[in-house]
């Protein structure tokens, strides 16, 4: 199967500290890779490198064979980081309109209206985002991420602090994205939600990839299994 994302022996240093050490990972097209690990393990750094937001010192990273900063690579990528990535002083419609426009999407008005409907914000299209509740902002962020139907989705702890409605919406959107063949990489602490969606798993500890492989039935039954088998702390216990 064609590889959508490839990291080869990637090293990332912050000063003298190696945040990523010799990381090699391949994510095949259409698969969903859950990036697991404790706080500070290097998950966010890895995702930022793949999304082209951070440079690295050694190794190579490609998205469909192109460097992450290549325009074609960014055109095919949807990124949801820790922030919601929308403007407080614009309305939901203006935000979606802007992000769809810079991605070069056509038929902006109907696309925007469809997504406002989809995430339950069709009744408040002109209200400034600063007046939105937390849940409404989260749903707008999901619409912003998915509006251009990206072929690669990079999601950094997407389930964190989402309300129930947004979790259900995100799960539905991820399932749909997989059905249309999108490749997904998501970092998370929520093992159960992530493992339920993931087809593959990558476990990061102290900047190293300790395990990469398919998600198995055993992992679903016992989400902590990976940590026990493949991390230093787990093996000491």
């Amino acid at each position: 199967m064609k590889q959508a994302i490839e990291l080869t022996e990637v090293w990332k240093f912050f000063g003298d500290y190696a945040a990523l050490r010799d990381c090699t990972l391949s994510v095949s097209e259409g698969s969903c890779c859950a990036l697991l690990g404790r706080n500070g393990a290097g998950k966010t750094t890895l995702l930022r490198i793949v999304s082209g937001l951070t440079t690295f010192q050694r190794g190579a990273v490609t998205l469909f064979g192109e460097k992450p900063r290549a325009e074609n690579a960014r055109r095919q990528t949807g990124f949801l980081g820790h922030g919601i990535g929308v403007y407080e002083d614009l309305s939901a419609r203006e935000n979606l309109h802007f992000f769809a426009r810079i991605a070069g999407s056509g038929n902006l008005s109907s696309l925007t209206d469809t997504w406002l409907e989809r995430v339950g914000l069709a009744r408040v299209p002109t209200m400034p985002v600063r007046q939105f509740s937390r849940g409404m902002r989260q749903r707008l962020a999901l619409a912003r991420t998915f509006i251009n139907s990206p072929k690669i989705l990079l999601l950094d702890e997407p389930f964190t602090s989402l309300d129930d409605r947004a979790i259900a919406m995100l799960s539905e959107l991820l399932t749909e994205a997989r059905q249309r063949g999108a490749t997904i990489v998501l970092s998370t602490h929520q093992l159960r939600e992530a493992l339920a969606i993931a087809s593959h798993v990558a476990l990061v500890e102290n900047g190293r990839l300790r395990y990469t492989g398919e998600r198995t039935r055993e992992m679903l039954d016992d989400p902590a299994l990976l940590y026990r088998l493949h991390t230093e702390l787990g093996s000491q216990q």
Partner: protein
Amino acid sequence: MNVVLQAFAVARKDLAIELRTKESLNAAGSFAIVILLLFSFAFDPGSDETREFGGGLLWIAFAFAGALVFNRSFARELPNECLDTLLASPLSAASLVIGKALANWVTLLVVEFVSLFVFGIFYNVSWVAHLAPLAAVFALATWGVSILGAIFGAITVNLRLRELMLPVIIYPLMIPLLIGAIELTKIILNNEPIGSEELLWGRILIVFDVVFTALAVILSDTILVN
């Protein structure tokens, strides 16, 4: 979508936010007007003196006011990690910087023309008859100031002391542009004929604009990523 269209989309978004919040317009506008008023009360200049130093006074006020606009420009992208979202999107970094410069250019031009009215009233200078050449000088020089502000706004966006660092860095670089703009404004306000020697200042403005716009296009990705 090409660089220019993306830049217009960024500028349009920034101007929509500015129209709603008026953060930069109010701060920069009132600052420029206060400088003009203070000079007027402090020195009580006659009309000949005003024509002599009016260009310098106006451009110092515009340069200081500009720093307020440039500081807000990229800082606006920090809440909710909008800058990361833009950099990970198909938007090119060059479009982002040029778009920011465009929005700053429009904002600063509005501030400049409001200040010009105040200048005309308090310094008893009639500039209406010279509107076309003044507008040309303002447009050229303000683009130079704006593109410089956008480039260094991008460099300093993640610094804790960016409000202080940005003016410290850009003012020395602005010197050739400001000299050109001051000289041309002085010549226009004095109603002097513009000959080939005076046109040299115009050429300096154009070269400054072209060089820094090219630098913005070439370096923006390196500046903004990491």
